[in-house]
Every structure is written in structure tokens, then in C-alpha cells.
């Protein structure tokens, strides 16, 4: 029997950008994208962690011009498709056009999981430009499988080529993933993908659950490099899916070597589950809030854990990094008032 094909989307150069505070250089991008292209990754995503034009006070400025990085990647990507992330409300169609000129051929249009309609125009614009367009729903733990299907259908109707569910808070347990992916696989006529965070240590398990529920696109990063406790570790996923009898198109040893020889040396810290990222997963908070929360905690003399719990209680969504300062300021004011 022919093995089922699972498409691997590497996002080391996008989600991993959070973990290096958006400091990837053109040389690093060239080495990583070039390496990934050779070992059989299907789609390589390269952008600021919060998508194109995410280089801001709110999300952290990129050390190098983002379009320069996209252009550098395009020169070494020959087999894979080159991808960017675009979050409507941050990036625009004008920015998408510029990314296209610099070599991007796939765009993942990311919205909060209940707000897909803000991305309709971006999906349509991408299709008009001849790009592959993906509807990307974030923070999927906050919506029911039925609600997610309804939102996915908005993207499907706009022309999306597949729908990606993102467990942006790393809150989902395998059963949550199975339920959500199953609802989409049964209700859509386009493929489904999944993006995990490892805040509760189940990124690989959740990716397996997604594949077994019928997802055919899986996001991963070398060494798991990504926001919060990171993403599904690419080289581990490659080995696991191979053992399970799936065809990922990956050269397993090659992937291991890119992770160990190219990516590991440029990491700022080991991608382990410290207390704060664990709290992201436990409280259901957007993973990219992590480093911003450490900074606010230090500035206001607070415990990052308390800030994260309050952010979760307020039901903040992706992109609301500014509210970390708001929460920290209000907590510090209340504490100082009590003294």
C-alpha cells in the first residue's frame, strides 16, 4: 500500500523568529532556508514572528529588513514553496505584493479563530496574484469545533487552498486537536493543517493526533524553535511520522543535521518548558507574549506567572502584546496602593 503523504511546513524562520527576538540575519536565513530546501520540506515560512510588517514596538523590531530576509530565502529555495504569514490588521495587501516581488509564493492569512472575515480580501488578493493562499485560524482552543468549521468555511469560500488550525497558546490536549481537525476534515472540501505549541509538552502528540484525524499539512520547526515553549520539533516529527508509516518527503538524517548544525548554534537559549511558557499553555495565553511578559515583569517587579494568569482571565487574543504592559501597570498600581 502506498504511504499517505503528509506535507511539512517549516516555520523556523517565522515562529522561530520570536525565540531569537526577530534577529535573524540574511546569512542565517540563507543557511537555514537553503538547508531545509535540500532535505525535502514542502513549504518554508519566513517572516517576522507576527507576520509581515510585524516589526514594531508592539511585537519587537526586526534586526534586519524583512523583505531583505524574504529575498535572501528566495535565492536558495528551489524545491520548496516559499511562504509568509500575514495577520490582517497588521499587514496589508500592499505588503503582500511586496513580499511576492521578493519571492513569496504562499501566504498564510492569520486571524483570531472567530474573525476569519477580516482576511477574505487578503485571500482573494493572493489568489489573484497566483499565490497559494492558506486560511490560518489562531488560538483554536478558544472556539468549539463547530465554530471553527463555520470560520474555516469563510476562508474556503474566499478561495483558500487549505485551512490551518493553530493552537497558538499551546493549550490543546490531543483530544481537543482530534475533535477540531475532525470537524474540519469532515466539513470542508480542502485540506486541513495544524500548528502546535509545546507549552504543555504535547506538541508532537498533538501533531500526531492531527494527522490521525486527517490533517495533511503539519507545521514544525528545527529544534522546536518558536514562541512560548516552541513548536513541534521538526526532526522529531520526521522520525515519528516515518515510524508511523507516513511519507513526509523528508530526508530524516538531513533534517537532523540542519537542526543540529545550522539552527542550534544560533539559538539564544535551549527550547525547554520553563515555568512561564508552561503557564501560557495552562492559562491559554498567546505564546508570543512570553518574552514581552518577562520584560514587563522585570520592569514592574512582578512575577511573570501572575501577569500571564491575568491576561488569560481577560481573554486577550493574538497580537495584544500591548495589554501585557496594561496588565502589569494595573497590577503594580494596585500593589503600590495597598502598601
Amino acid at each position, binding site marked *: 500500500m502506498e504511504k499517505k503523504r503528509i506535507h511539512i511546513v517549516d516555520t523556523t524562520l517565522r515562529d522561530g523568529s520570536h525565540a531569537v527576538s526577530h534577529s535573524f540575519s540574511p546569512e542565517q536565513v540563507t543557511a537555514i532556508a537553503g538547508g531545509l530546501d535540500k532535505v525535502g520540506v514542502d513549504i518554508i515560512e519566513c517572516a517576522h514572528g507576527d507576520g509581515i*510588517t510585524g516589526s*514594531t*514596538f*508592539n511585537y519587537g523590531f526586526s534586526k534586519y529588513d524583512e523583505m531583505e530576509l524574504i529575498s535572501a530565502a528566495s535565492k536558495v529555495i528551489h524545491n520548496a514553496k516559499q511562504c509568509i504569514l500575514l495577520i*490582517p*490588521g*497588521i499587514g*496589508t*495587501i*500592499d505588503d503582500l505584493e511586496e513580499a511576492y516581488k521578493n519571492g513569496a509564493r504562499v501566504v498564510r492569512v492569520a486571524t*483570531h479563530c*472567530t*474573525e476569519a*472575515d*477580516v482576511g*477574505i*480580501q487578503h485571500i482573494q488578493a493572493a489568489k489573484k496574484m497566483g499565490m497559494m493562499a492558506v486560511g490560518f485560524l489562531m488560538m483554536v482552543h478558544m472556539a468549539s469545533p463547530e465554530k471553527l468549521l463555520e470560520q474555516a468555511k469563510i476562508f474556503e469560500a474566499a478561495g483558500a487552498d487549505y485551512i490551518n488550525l493553530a493552537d497558538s497558546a499551546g493549550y490543546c490536549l490531543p483530544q481537543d486537536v482530534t475533535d477540531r481537525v475532525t470537524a474540519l476534515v469532515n466539513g470542508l472540501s480542502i485540506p486541513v493543517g495544524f500548528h502546535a505549541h509545546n507549552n504543555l509538552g504535547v506538541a508532537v502528540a498533538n501533531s500526531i493526533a492531527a494527522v490521525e484525524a486527517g490533517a495533511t499539512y503539519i507545521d514544525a520547526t528545527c529544534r522546536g524553535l518558536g514562541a512560548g515553549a516552541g513548536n513541534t520539533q521538526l526532526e522529531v516529527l520526521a522520525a515519528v511520522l516515518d515510524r508511523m508509516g507516513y511519507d513526509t518527503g523528508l530526508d530524516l538524517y538531513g533534517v537532523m543535521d540542519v537542526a543540529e548544525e545550522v539552527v542550534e548554534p544560533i539559538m539564544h537559549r535551549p527550547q525547554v518548558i520553563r515555568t512561564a511558557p508552561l503557564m501560557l499553555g495552562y492559562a491559554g495565553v498567546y505564546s508570543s507574549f512570553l518574552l514581552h511578559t518577562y520584560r514587563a515583569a522585570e520592569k514592574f517587579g512582578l512575577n511573570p506567572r501572575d501577569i500571564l494568569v491575568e491576561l488569560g482571565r*481577560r*481573554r*486577550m*487574543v493574538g*497580537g*495584544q502584546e*500591548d*495589554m501585557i*504592559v*496594561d496588565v502589569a*501597570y*494595573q497590577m503594580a498600581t494596585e500593589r503600590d496602593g495597598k502598601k
Partner: protein
Amino acid sequence: MEEKIKVGIIGPGNIGTDLMYKVMRSKHLQMDFMTGIVESEGLRRAAGLGFKTSTEGVKAIAADPEVKIVFDATMASAHLANAPVLKEAGKIAIDMTPAAVGPYVVPCVNLAHLQDVDNFNMVTCGGQATIPIVHAINEVADVEYAEIVASLSSKSAGPGTRASIDEFTQTTRKGLEQVGGADRAKAIIILNPAEPPVMMCNTIYTLVKNPDEKAIKEAVEKRVKEVQQYTPGYQLRVPPMVEGNKVTVIVQVEGAGDFLPKYSGNLDIINSAAIAVAEKLAEQMLQK
């Protein structure tokens, strides 16, 4: 009864209806005419309150010699068509859409400087909430770069906003530069579906040349009071926080609850600003 200036509204949706209630409370404005292009709940509501209504849109209002000021609460493409008709009829247009036929106006910043203008553009809700702060900081500290994050409750963002989210960020950016005085700017919008709905919140980051903390704090506090003159629910959540050359300010807008719920502070501030423009114009007309 004191003399008032008659006002028309094109577009009987949420914005138009809230504007109607605000006009009804105004000292100098008299609600007179509400028009749309199809029969709607909004038109019936206006008729029920005793105002003239029509499904002839801009044409009906243009043909009415009594109406002097017209709020266009339709959408950008419609206003592009309506603007010349209103001009021809000698009406002053207050444009609630991002069409930007006329200059941007933020009442506490540049209304006094706009002379002989017959078409005012209200920028965006995010612009009305953040441009005053950027302008205040720019006056004392010289803003090189301004960046704002406007978060709105999902419920307060209608289909128009959702279908044109790029226009929102681009128009707000231009307003921050042209009216706020920032050399460069960036605007971000976030929709949050939390229940109960979140209040409109705006974070304003600026990169300044002269980070004089005392001057910045005074300027911002003074400006907040000026905005409160026409939007009472405008509040400073986080007063200016100066770190090196970076200044962070957070403001919240609670709506007046005229027609729209209080969490729709985004809609309230743009409508309140539009009313402030109309009242100023009416005052000038009445003095003549």
C-alpha cells in the same frame, strides 16, 4: 426656542442612527432628515421620531434647501459619488467613511485651523482616539515615529470595517502623520471577541527626540481633558511611560450609550468628534 442649524444624515445604519441621537441632544443642531437607499429599520426609527426620511439617498437631501450640514455614514465608494452632489447643493459634508475627499479633521487638534472647508473627513475611530495624543507629544517632544494598537470588541466592528481592514490601518497611519505630526507611523487593529465585550483600548507608542517626561505628561493630561470635552468616556489607562526615547500611553474609550452599547467606544468617539465639528460649524453659521 433658540435657533438651530438643520442637519441631514445619509445612511441609517448603526453609525447614522447613533449620530441622530447625538444630534437630538445638541445645542446648535436640529435633526431634520435621514435618508437611505432602501427601506430599513433605521429609516423607520427616524420616521417614528418625527424626522423626514427618504430612500432617495443623497438626492433627497441635496434637494432640501433647509439642511445645511450632512453626515455621510455610508461607505467610501458611496461617499465618492455623494461628495460632488452635496458640494453642488451647497451643503457641508462630514464624511464618516475613509473616502477622504476633504481634509482629515480631529476636533481638538486641527478644527480651528480648517477654514473654508466644505468636506471634512473623520479619519477612523482609531485615529480619533490616538491622533490627539500623538499630536500632544509631538508638540513637546518631536515625534519621529508613532505606532498605535487599537483593540475593539468584535461586536462593535461591523461588516464595513471587516471588509476594509487595510483601509482602516492605512487611513489611520496617514492621519497620525498628517494631523498627529509624526514623521512616520504605523497603525494596528485587533478585534477581540471576549464576552462581555471589551472596551475600546488604544495603545500609543512614540519614538521622540526630546524625552522630557514632565512636559510629555502635562501635555498628554491636558489633551485628554480636551478630548473629554466632546467624548466624556475618553480615559487615560496608563499615563505616559518614558523609557529612553520611547513613550507608551494607553487610553480607553467608553461609549456614551446613545444608541450603541457602551463597549462601542470606537464608534462613539468618531461620532462624537463628527458632532463636535458640526456644532462648531453651526455656531459659526448662527453668528453670521
